[in-house]
């Protein structure tokens, strides 16, 4: 089995929650280490601008 999947199944979960905060709250309630990211659409949500930015970065 791959190391990263093995780690997921056998080591404590550490989660980056991107989006709906309720998911992070419920993980916290299960004593899981989690960081909440209040995600916003990049570059004002403009797909074209986003792709351009990605090429530049």
């Amino acid at each position, binding site marked *: *089995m791959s190391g990263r999947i093995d*780690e*997921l199944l056998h*080591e404590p979960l550490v989660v980056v929650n991107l989006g709906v905060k309720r*998911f992070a709250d419920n993980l916290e309630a299960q004593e899981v280490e989690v*960081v909440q990211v*209040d*995600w916003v659409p990049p570059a004002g*949500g403009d797909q074209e601008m986003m792709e351009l930015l990605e090429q530049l970065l």
Partner: protein
Amino acid sequence: MSSGFVIRENQYYDSVFLMGVNKRLSQMQGVQQTAALMGSERNKQLLAQIGVRGAAIDAAQPNDLIVAAIADTSQTVDALLASLDQALQAIEKSTPASTLHTLEEGLAEKPHANLALISVPGEYATREAMKALESGLNVFLFSSNVPLEQELHLKRFAAERGLLVMGPDCGTSLIGGVGIGFANAVRRGTIGAIGPSGTGLQEFTCQVHHAGLGISHAIGAGSHDLSDEIGGLTTLAALDALEADPQTEVIALVAKPPGAATLRRLTARLRTCAKPVVGCFLGARLDSVKGKASITWARTIDEAALAAVRQSGAKGAPPSRSSPQTAFGVRRQEASPPTIQLTEQERALASQTRSMWAAEQRHLRGVFAGGTFVYQSQQILHEAGLVVHSNAPLDPRFRLDHPDRSQAHTIVDMGDDDYTLGKPHPMIDGATRRERILAESHDPSLAILLLDFILGYNASMDPVGELLDAIVEARQAATRRGGALTVVASICGTEGDPQDLNLQATMLREAGAIVFRSNALAALFCCELLKPV
């Protein structure tokens, strides 16, 4: 009728937050409909569908908030839109904002993270999931509306890197005892599970729990994983992982039938699996899969759970039939293959119940939150020779002409896109189910109301309470017509779930419902109610 809208530029909120805002606004007197949405193209189309249009809406961007209202008078619309800040502040107060706004910022905070849980709108999901994979994270992708070619790309990339992508459109996983997304508080144990359907995994894991054993890991694969376009990439990766996992003794696969090519690929892999495998492809004819590999095939989720419990060596000594855990629900039989049956008392109850129906009462109406339960119930009723119509039909010949209009025996999936675009899923909020139950209550042919209730993390905290007055009203309406409505309910949940399982069951019973601890048993009971006399 009057309508109006306001736009707040650069004010982004997640969908669950907006559901809270929408619910608060919609409670104002005189309001017909409200919508609180971000300005994506998809959402703008939804607004146009309810008749809310304008140049400012056309120009809105995906990170602009649009709140629209339709009400009896223009004064109500104005008052509602003026109260928006109050509603936003009230919800914000209960959910303090994070200062982090990107995956990179989250990773800087938790550089040792091993999982990204992603629930951003579908059009951005691939980009964020790819960034997570590139950073070496496994991914749980709750987001839906991700194109299949993007899903395939993500899963191939993950396979190359030895990472797992659960999803897109993944509702449920249980990893090392932790429920991710919609999951139940299930005992840890020796049975591993894989499935593309969230409610299918929830029901399976709950049935294993009720039988006295537990789950090592339950891995959600995403609703399209077993399509031939995707080829079961996550399912196969999960199989490898569970086969190698020392804690897992048995592996169960619970799904709708895979695509033909994927089924061939999957059975070839299962043939070489070093651990016992239980397969349950709901809706598939068992003779189409029997004889393929050394697998125990089950017809229903309950039977898959029983087979897995038996295969695991029953180290946890499943309780006897008379123990409290099996008082209503799981039956364990020693004969192979395992089957579920109604008890004599339940058969007698069915006979007594239907004797109270008026002459015109003859139809079953299922109003469901869980898509897998819609599928499984149809299968069980079809096997009993009953024709059931649905907006998510097992047999395409029996698709409803219109999802809002039931025909003869009908089971409607209220979690389908027909009912969830721009509205909360019925597992989170029972409003659309409540409306449908009330609509069904006017039909004199209604004899059986079949319902599912799904408990667990992230689900509604009071799913029964949300529907209770509608259930009572439907029963009273039938009584006023000189008959009696039979309400049959199943609860998917455990005593450890955040909702109180026993209280939810008690509330249903006090409202006159007959309650089962599995959807399959509730459907079997309906077969008994409807069998020719």
